[in-house]
């Protein structure tokens, strides 16, 4: 075949271009670690990778939500522990006060202690979540403290009002899975999450039962203490025990959800890697091949370009 002189330069230029662009692509893959960067590189892999990335980011969010709920559940748990202590002390007082050997002055001492317990319960029920600054036991109402009290001339609590509601906020902890670490302060509807202090389903009404105990201690009505208050306080203790157990269940659920999100995230990483990552070994070998070809093309090109009949005409 007859070859035009410029055919050399033309084909060399296009070969150099093609080899240079191969090297550019491969070098880029090595330095970024990605075989797919733009949608046109591999449209299907790109769409899959975007989907996996979005899914992974959602798993990360689940993990963040779980951590938030776990912190809140721990806060709730410490309040529950102190309420449990108060509740068992109140039960002890009710039992001891029922004994006929007690004088009225003994009963008055007990009444003073119960007053302190009432204040402790009110403080505990008005605990705020340190991270959001919102009340832990106000349900989904916001603003004022969940429990406000009315006091008599001596500063003793005579009545309690609940300002919250009986709903709780749910947070997403997995695909189609929500959870809540909140406990409403009171639930008098008989349905939904059980109230912390007042709960009509279990008959708990801790603060009012404590007020009744104190009033009966002050008035020396030990019969009422033995017949009514002890039983009522037992219901409160059972309710708090239920809440402690429930909190444990929620924490377990959160731990399970966290490990699920984490293993999902790991397998998504694997899938992202499979669909978009460059295999370093393979890419390096290809890059070496391209470099060798480039070198060979340059060398042979330079040699051919120097040669012509002109070199031999004297």
């Amino acid at each position: 075949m007859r070859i035009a002189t410029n055919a050399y330069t033309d084909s060399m230029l296009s070969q150099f271009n093609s080899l240079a662009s191969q090297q550019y692509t491969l070098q880029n893959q090595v330095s970024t670690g990605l075989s797919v960067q733009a949608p046109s590189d591999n449209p299907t892999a790109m769409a899959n990778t975007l989907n996996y990335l979005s899914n992974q980011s959602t798993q990360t969010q689940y993990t963040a939500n779980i951590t938030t709920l776990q912190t809140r559940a721990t806060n709730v748990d410490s309040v529950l522990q102190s309420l449990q202590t108060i509740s068992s002390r109140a039960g002890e007082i009710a039992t001891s006060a029922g004994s006929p050997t007690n004088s009225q002055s003994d009963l008055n001492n007990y009444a003073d202690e119960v007053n302190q317990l009432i204040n402790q319960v009110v403080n505990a029920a008005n605990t705020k979540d340190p991270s959001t600054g919102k009340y832990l036991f106000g349900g989904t109402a916001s603003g004022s403290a969940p429990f406000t009290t009315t006091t008599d001339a001596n500063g003793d609590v005579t009545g309690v009002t609940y300002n919250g509601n009986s709903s709780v906020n749910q947070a997403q902890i997995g695909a189609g899975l929500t959870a809540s670490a909140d406990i409403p302060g009171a639930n008098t509807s008989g349905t939904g999450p059980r109230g912390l202090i007042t709960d009509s389903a279990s008959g708990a009404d801790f603060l009012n039962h404590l007020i009744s105990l104190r009033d009966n201690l002050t008035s020396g009505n030990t019969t009422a203490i033995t017949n009514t208050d002890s039983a009522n306080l037992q219901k409160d203790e059972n309710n708090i025990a239920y809440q402690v157990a429930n909190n444990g269940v929620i924490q377990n659920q959160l731990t399970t959800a966290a490990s699920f999100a984490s293993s999902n995230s790991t397998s998504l990483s694997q899938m992202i890697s499979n669909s978009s990552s460059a295999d370093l070994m393979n890419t390096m070998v290809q890059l070496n091949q391209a470099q060798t070809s480039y070198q060979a093309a340059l060398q042979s090109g330079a040699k051919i370009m120097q040669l012509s009949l002109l070199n031999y005409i004297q």
Partner: protein
Amino acid sequence: MLGLFGTLNMAARSLQTQMTGVEVAGQNLANVNTPGYSRQVVKIAASADIGTTVGAEGTGASVTGIQQIVSSLLNAQIQTQGGTSGYWNAQQTILQNAQNGLDEFLNGSGATPSASTTSSSTTDSGLSGQLTSLFNAFSSLAASPSTSSQQAVIGAAQQLATTFNQISGQLGAAQTAANTTVSTDVASANKLLTSIASLNKQIATAQFSGGTANDLLDQREQALESLSALTNITTSTGANGAVNVNINGQTLITGNTLTDTLQTYTGANGNLLVQTAGGGADLTLTSGSIQGTIDARDGELTTMQNQVDAFASNLISAVNTVHDSGYNSAGGNGNNFFTGTNAATIGVNSALANNPGLIQISSSPTNGGDTSLALQLSQLAGTTQTALNSQTFGSYYDATVAGLGNALSNANTQVTNQTTVSNMLQTQLGSVSGVNTDEEMTNLMMFQRAYEASAQVVTTLNTMMGDTLAMKTS
């Protein structure tokens, strides 16, 4: 018998003949780098002989023509090929623009030693990632309704809205760029039509007086090649070697006359169309960069714009529907979350942007701490949208990205293939019409030696004539 003078004449003609050979070799060498130049060869034939009593006696040689070596078959193939190349190159440019405008790229921070390494550093900076960020921010707000969570939601929404605006702007700019490209291409095509008509005339004039207009023919071939890269054309050879050009049966050049030119106009549906400027006849172009640009502009680019707009408007209405049914923590309501109707106009309501506390995520005016609507908003991520082909927001957008990727990937492959074919045809044409310097140098030497030899004949005859004259004087 030629005799002394006859032979001297023959030698002089031979000098001229060999000189022409040197001239043609020189011309070829001079044009070795001229695009579209077809090499020329000098045709030499023995002159008519003279009958003598001892037989026919030659009278030397003379140049009968300077011939251009061309292959009309290859030229026709290159024209067709040029049209296909032009079409895909134009598509590639527009779609590349659109892909850059979409700005959906993966970023990585280094290769992993093997595919089995599970830690992935791949990130995505585009709309897809930002959409997930917004839904995640809502999810976070549901879990922990703090002021910083509210600000995070507004921040994510603003970033998403800005990206939407940018993408819409970039796609709009790509469309404007396509309009400019088409009008430039149409202007170039019209200029080429004018010059082809004028070359037809010059060639006819040159050939009428008996010459061959080799270089003008090369120029016209070049012009036809350039024209077919812009639009598909059909050519036929008319009287006096003129090339008649028509598109879709609409005559643009007959003989030396430019009968019509091209122009674009916008159709009823906003599509760009091409028609003849004078006759107003609609043209259906099948190849060339004009149609390539138009197809990309009115095809994939418009589809992209529509899909991004549909995505934005459905997101706006889905988020607003949930958000507007709710109340802020103070029990107030009446603020939209998003403003605007499409990708170009989407924005976060400035009232919320200035005061994130006004976000309406409570389902009841009295339960200010309720976050159930934030949960609902975050769950929009997994909700299929009837208006978006029953896909979720994320998968709809992923499909949009993949659609553009497929179109560009196809254009890239076509361009690569066409380049290979084009290079092959050019090499083939080069092997017929291209100049080879070695060959021309050989020809040069051949004619030089022949010239030297003929000059020697002249010298010999001169000596012989001197000898003849000396016979009288001596």
